[in-house]
């Protein structure tokens, strides 16, 4: 193993912030994270106990009970898309908790898999507007990381009153089956357990899977009994039309029949056990996952809730990386950005984070300027680093807290547009898995340049204080009403009523943008994949990095002896 010069990073908590500051910051975040937990519980309850009882009365398990029974006992799972459709009501005034489908990365027989389980406590697992997108997003994550996919199908079909919003578009329900096909074409194992209704679109989903199990309660049909009665005046039960008798024994559309949910889940576990084991341990090179020297839980008191307040970004890295060891690349250049390599869960990953507070200005020695922004040297640095991660096959973690690119005459003269575009080009064409965390601000083109969701990170996580926006509310209000303001942003109009209208209009814009920046709004619209408590970030990232190293043979993973990273280190003037 070549020398990867990991060095201690970070300081003990009491040397970073005093007790009072730590307590205040943790308390402020706790209020928001308690709301997160409460909302999670609300979503997990689906349509309530009555629906749970109804499912149990049929001798079936709920989607979340199935997930619990499927995964290795005692292991955590990582749910994505929890808040899709959160707070939104549909035709008839109904809600669709989690968009009626549970998508989660879980551990089964030691392997990480993507589980996609229709929530049978929400309108019998119907597909709502955005349910297809949510399922496709999970399929995309699985495709990118070659994670086996397990479908637990219990779906009554599209929620018909809203069919126009889930059926025809590019990401309409049918695209799920295209994703099934692409997963299959890329050699990603898919296993379907049909454990209830599986009507129309739902019927296609399992068929492309490599192995299909059906319980005695399950049926798969192109059209259900009501449609058949209407179209052909035939009275049949759903099981007669497409139950296991038909599909396991006559049509061959399913492989095995099992008595119930429990038996089906055991059978699927056995199937997963027959798949190749994870490559992660091989790539760990005999080194296990080691906790950071400074506990990850301390992040909850180190991240100020007020996005205008600075903190020490190195302390964040120290609480994410194993043993708080980190190899910082090019520290002498563009200090507004910190990039380097660390282990997480025993596996190497690249990290990029924005430094907050004041940083040096290379054009004016002795002067300081604000961090949390992109300047020329910093852009060039992370662009080269990003490409080196791609070249070396290092999963790349972007930790965003960015107010945007530097602006002004100097920024334009220096050609920041071009430097930024180069970074965007690099990230757009990288094939190494990238993961993005929006620690706080994710503003303007900075959100794009640091691999925000439009740049296809495999997963993007938000915290309770993430803010995605083109600009802050006040700035946007000024931009919107620019024509009515003078050069000093004062209202031009002399007439009182007219002035009042501008004042109120600006206040409305500002308030509207502030609301839209709520991470739950983003999560509702699939503009971020999940909202997580900051103390859980390390566990999430360790799992995602492990998932990146699980499959072998599909992507470049260089051993550290031949990393391009070493070249970068030498080229920036270190004596060798």
């Amino acid at each position, binding site marked *: 193993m070549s020398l990867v010069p990991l060095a201690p990073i970070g300081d003990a908590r009491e040397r970073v912030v005093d007790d009072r500051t730590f307590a205040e910051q943790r308390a402020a975040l706790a209020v928001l994270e308690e709301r997160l937990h409460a909302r999670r519980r609300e979503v997990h309850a689906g349509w309530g106990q009555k629906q749970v009882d109804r499912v149990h009365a049929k001798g079936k398990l709920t989607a979340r009970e199935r997930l619990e029974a499927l995964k290795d006992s005692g292991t955590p799972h990582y749910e994505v898309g929890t808040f899709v459709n959160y707070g939104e009501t549909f035709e008839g005034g109904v809600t669709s908790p989690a968009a009626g489908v549970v998508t989660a990365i879980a551990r089964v027989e030691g392997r990480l898999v993507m589980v996609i389980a229709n929530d049978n406590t929400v309108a019998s697992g119907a597909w709502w507007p955005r349910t297809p997108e949510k399922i496709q997003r999970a399929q995309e994550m699985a495709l990118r990381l070659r994670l086996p996919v397990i479908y637990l199908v219990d779906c009554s079909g599209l929620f018909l009153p809203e069919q126009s919003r889930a059926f025809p578009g590019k990401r309409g329900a049918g695209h799920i089956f295209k994703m099934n096909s692409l997963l299959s074409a890329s050699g990603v194992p898919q296993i379907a357990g049909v454990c209830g209704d599986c009507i129309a679109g739902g019927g296609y989903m399992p068929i492309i899977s490599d192995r299909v199990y059906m319980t005695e309660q399950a049926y798969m049909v192109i059209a259900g009994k009501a449609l058949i009665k209407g179209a052909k005046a035939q009275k049949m039960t759903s099981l007669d039309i497409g139950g296991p008798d038909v599909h396991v024994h006559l049509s061959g559309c399913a492989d095995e029949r099992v008595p119930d949910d429990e038996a089906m889940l055991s059978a699927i576990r056995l199937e997963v056990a027959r798949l190749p084991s994870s490559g992660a341990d091989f790539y760990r090179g005999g080194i296990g996952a080691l906790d950071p020297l400074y506990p990850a839980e301390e992040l909850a008191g180190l991240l100020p809730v007020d996005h205008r307040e600075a903190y020490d970004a190195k302390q964040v890295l120290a609480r994410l990386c194993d043993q708080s060891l980190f190899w910082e690349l090019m520290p002498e250049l563009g*200090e507004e950005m910190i990039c380097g390599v660390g282990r997480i869960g025993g596996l190497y990953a690249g990290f990029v984070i924005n430094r907050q507070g004041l940083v040096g200005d290379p054009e004016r020695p002795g002067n300081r300027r604000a961090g949390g922004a992109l300047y020329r040297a910093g852009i060039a640095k992370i662009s080269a680093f990003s490409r080196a991660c791609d070249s070396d096959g290092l999963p790349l973690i972007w930790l965003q807290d960015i107010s945007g690119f530097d602006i002004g005459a100097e920024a334009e003269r220096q050609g920041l547009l071009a430097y930024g575009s180069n970074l965007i080009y690099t990230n757009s064409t990288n094939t190494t898995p990238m993961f993005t965390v929006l620690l706080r601000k994710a503003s303007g083109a900075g959100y794009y340049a640091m691999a925000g969701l439009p740049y296809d990170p495999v997963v993007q996580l938000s915290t309770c204080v993430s803010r995605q926006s083109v600009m802050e509310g006040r700035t946007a209000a000024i931009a919107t009403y620019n024509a009515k303001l003078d050069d000093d942003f004062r209202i031009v109009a002399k007439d009182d009523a007219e002035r009042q209208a501008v004042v109120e209009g600006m206040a409305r814009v500002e308030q509207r943008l502030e609301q839209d920046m709520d991470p739950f709004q983003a999560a509702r619209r699939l503009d971020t994949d999940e909202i997580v408590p900051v103390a859980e970030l390390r566990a999430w990232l360790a799992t995602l990095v492990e998932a990146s190293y699980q499959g072998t043979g599909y992507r470049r993973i260089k051993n550290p002896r031949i990393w391009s990273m070493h070249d970068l280190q030498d080229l920036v003037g270190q004596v060798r």
Partner: protein
Amino acid sequence: MSDGSTATRVTRPELTVKLAIRGDGKAVLESPSVGLWRGAPEEGAVVVPGQALGELETLGVITLLRAPATATGLVIEVHGAREGRARRPVQYGDALLVLEWTDAASELAATAQERADARRESGVLVFCTPSSGRYYSRPAPGKAPFVEVGDVISAGQAVALLEVMKTFNRLQYGGDALPERARVKRIVPADASDLAPGDVLLELEPE
């Protein structure tokens, strides 16, 4: 602060070298850590307190070395000078430089001392702002102030909020010339007033 290097980083790791007096009365500057020493001063150079004395590379991390507050003199010996390598391996406590006291050096030292004294106003201990910006005495409106007159503060404690370019920075008490703990005698600026770099924030007395 000028340290003779062109680096503009403000977040550079730094270490102060240790000073020992040899049997012959000469001052020896000793390495504060293990590593590869680069950018060493040459023989005949003059060292004054706070001066940059090259960099120490330890496991790829480069740390700036500074002369301690009491070191002044002419460099008469440099560790590893004969081999003339760009990076010289040093161990903890190795003699990096040997200094000889000279008149020229003592003049420079006096200037350096004057500069240091200028930071203390009439002998009172002071804590100054490292940057320009708007000063706030409390973390947020309605919250208790960070410090009040009579409070005993210790190194690392947040004592003020400084707004620079729309970002808020908590200023932590500390600094080479200041004691680990001190009592606040006076809070100098008015709340929400604008400060220039080096303006005095707190007047202190030793605890």
